[in-house]
């Protein structure tokens, strides 16, 4: 690794693929070719590969973390990887692609700016390609890179690549992904992963790493609608700051400045921002995703779970949610149960009043007849809450448009929801 400047931006992306389409090899290749693998890691991988009788280092071993996975040769949970180039720092949420692990894909996608979807050039689009793409779309990922892998096994054929591009375009027109990029690669040999391929001069769109370094995601942030969910109240019990009262939280969206008139929800009281602080530093403005402390001019009643907004741009207050849900738990959904809904910094009791339909995410077909809702199911439901919460459409705001359901007895997270208002 060369000396990286500290002033580079962050890109979070997710990778989805099944056991055989070379996802682990691709990630291993990105880490290896961007010189993010340390000598001792590479030595360990080379030794393990030799033990298995392999000729060259199996780069996929770099990313198989837990013993159970190494033994079975599969990835069973979301794993996070890190690498940096002089242009950017990257966080990869590496998710397994088996059908039973939709929940992991949803988890990895929830914090990603971009998704890489792997397609085996020999097989073309499979059910899982549809599934991964649908999840990326549902979780609001605006940038997808379709990597057509194993091009070496189809003689680097441009025709085959064009065929897959055209099939994917026709399928994805039903989804909500504004930016889709196609790159023909060979993860095994490294073509178009970090360096441009010599085998495919017909591809002029650059390598995958090239695209990851350049893709512009900052404009995906919502700087229009001011939403500041209050995480906690800061009241020092020390002499130097006896009268200080600040509201701690992370800006969900919008830009806040000292002097701004604000409204506190749900009370509806109004005040003005006196000061915005980060530690002991005073900021001229605050925007997502900064964690700050806001001080108001007036001594108003504000507590955890409240939201600071602008008077003429407010979220929707509602006790009834018509929402898509991904069921995450081993335990099937219990229609009679009361769950706890966690949303921003607040909680409410929740009852699932009705399941409208279950979605077949391979065909996008809506099934209205089903026995029960089990792990990895995606459903459309009506949820009734004990108290209203303050929400926005997920496409406009990933923070105020998302929630989880928690089982009050086991404490487990059982479902994740995205709101389409």
């Amino acid at each position, binding site marked *: 690794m060369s000396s990286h400047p*500290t002033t580079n931006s962050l890109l979070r992306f997710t990778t989805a693929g099944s056991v055989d389409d070379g996802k682990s090899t691709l990630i291993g290749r990105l880490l290896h070719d961007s010189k993010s693998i*340390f000598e001792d890691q590479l030595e360990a991988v080379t030794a393990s590969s030799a033990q298995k009788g392999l000729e060259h280092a199996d780069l996929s071993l770099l990313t198989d973390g837990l013993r159970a996975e190494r033994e079975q040769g599969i990835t069973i949970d979301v794993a996070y990887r890190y690498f940096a180039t002089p242009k950017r720092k990257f966080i990869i949420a590496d998710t397994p692609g088996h059908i039973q692990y939709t929940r992991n894909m949803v988890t990895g996608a929830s914090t990603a700016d971009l998704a890489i979807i792997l397609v085996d050039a020999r097989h073309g689009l499979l059910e899982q390609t549809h599934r991964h793409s649908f999840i990326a779309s549902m979780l609001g990922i605006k940038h997808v890179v379709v990597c057509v892998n194993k091009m070496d096994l189809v003689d680097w054929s441009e025709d085959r690549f064009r065929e897959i591009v055209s099939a994917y375009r026709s399928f994805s027109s039903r989804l909500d992904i504004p930016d889709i990029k196609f790159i023909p690669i060979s993860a095994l040999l490294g073509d178009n992963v970090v360096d441009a391929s010599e085998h495919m001069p017909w591809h002029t769109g650059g390598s995958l790493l090239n695209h990851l370094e350049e893709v512009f995601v900052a404009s995906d942030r919502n700087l229009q609608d001011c939403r500041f969910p209050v995480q906690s109240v800061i009241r020092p019990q020390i002499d130097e700051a006896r009268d200080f009262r600040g509201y701690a939280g992370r800006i969900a969206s919008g830009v806040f400045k000292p002097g701004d008139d604000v409204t506190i929800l749900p009370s509806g009281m109004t005040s003005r921002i006196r000061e915005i602080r980060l530690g002991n530093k005073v900021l001229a403005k605050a925007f997502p995703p*900064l964690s700050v402390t806001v001080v108001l001019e007036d001594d108003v009643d504000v507590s955890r779970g409240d939201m600071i907004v602008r008077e003429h741009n407010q979220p929707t207050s509602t006790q009834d949610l018509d929402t898509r849900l991904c069921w995450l738990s081993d335990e099937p959904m219990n229609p009679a149960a009361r769950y706890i809904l966690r*949303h921003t910094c607040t909680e409410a009791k929740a009852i699932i009043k009705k399941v409208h339909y279950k979605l077949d995410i391979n065909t996008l077909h809506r099934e209205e007849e089903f026995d029960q809702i089990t792990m990895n199911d995606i459903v459309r439901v009506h949820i009734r809450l004990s108290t209203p919460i303050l929400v926005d459409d997920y496409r406009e705001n990933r923070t105020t448009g998302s929630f989880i359901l928690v089982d009050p007895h086991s404490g487990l997270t059982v479902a*994740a929801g995205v709101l389409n208002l």
Partner: protein
Amino acid sequence: MNIDYNLDHLDELEAESIYVIREVAAQFERPAILFSGGKDSIVVTHLAAKAFAPARIPMPLVHIDTGHNFPETLAFRDGLVENLGVRLIVGSVQQTIDDGLVKEETGVHASRNRLQTTTLLNTIEEHAFDACIGGARRDEEKARAKERFFSHRDDFGQWDPKNQRPELWNLFNGKHRPGEHFRVFPLNNWTELDIWNYITREQIDLPSLYFAHERECIVRGTTILAHSEYLNLKPDEQPVTMQVRFRTLGDLTITGAIESDADTLEKITAEVAATRITERGGRMDDKRSSSAMEDRKKEGYF
């Protein structure tokens, strides 16, 4: 899109970590920060101070003292605690040994690293902590790549990799039954280089051990260990004076030093950026087997 709204990746990491630390204070009754004296726990403490400023950090620092600590680490710890006006709780491995709960390892590779798990779990139980914030990072070791921010531990302090709660968006679920507790890792998404860049940017004080200095060392295979009364020497081993610094701070008996003349933060950051060996590469405790870390985590190690 105004260029004014661009953030450095360190700003994003800082914002995420502060959010996580504040969630701990809000969701738990009796949280604590596990303080090892190493750079990662120092950064966690710095972030906690920022998260609650101008108030004091609303939870104690917990130090598991193996009795084999570098004296520099202990002096640094006491100074920091006084500066921040925060409570310090020390769990003593020596006490755990004296109480007969664990047996000291013997031989040249003897270390108290494994023993501290018992002391940690006892300290958690004694003070009824329901959340302990640690400075571990996902990039440190293979078994940590899947670690959650809020990592659930059962009544026995054990980590079950197959039974971790999914974490989506910034919605952290700290619901727990009596006896269960959480380990929380605000630095999950930081790399070693991020830590050094941040320490340099924020001018955070560190123990002198991180900077190049002259020291009596024992060279064992490819590992350089600090010579001390706690280290059991092989017959042919002789201390030699070397110019070294430490990349991580564990016990005197297991923490490998590297030869270095980096004596400023800038030089260290440049050295880390150019280095080709992972920082845990010098830790004898991880080399015991390729799943060494996973096994210790399951038992309740940090």
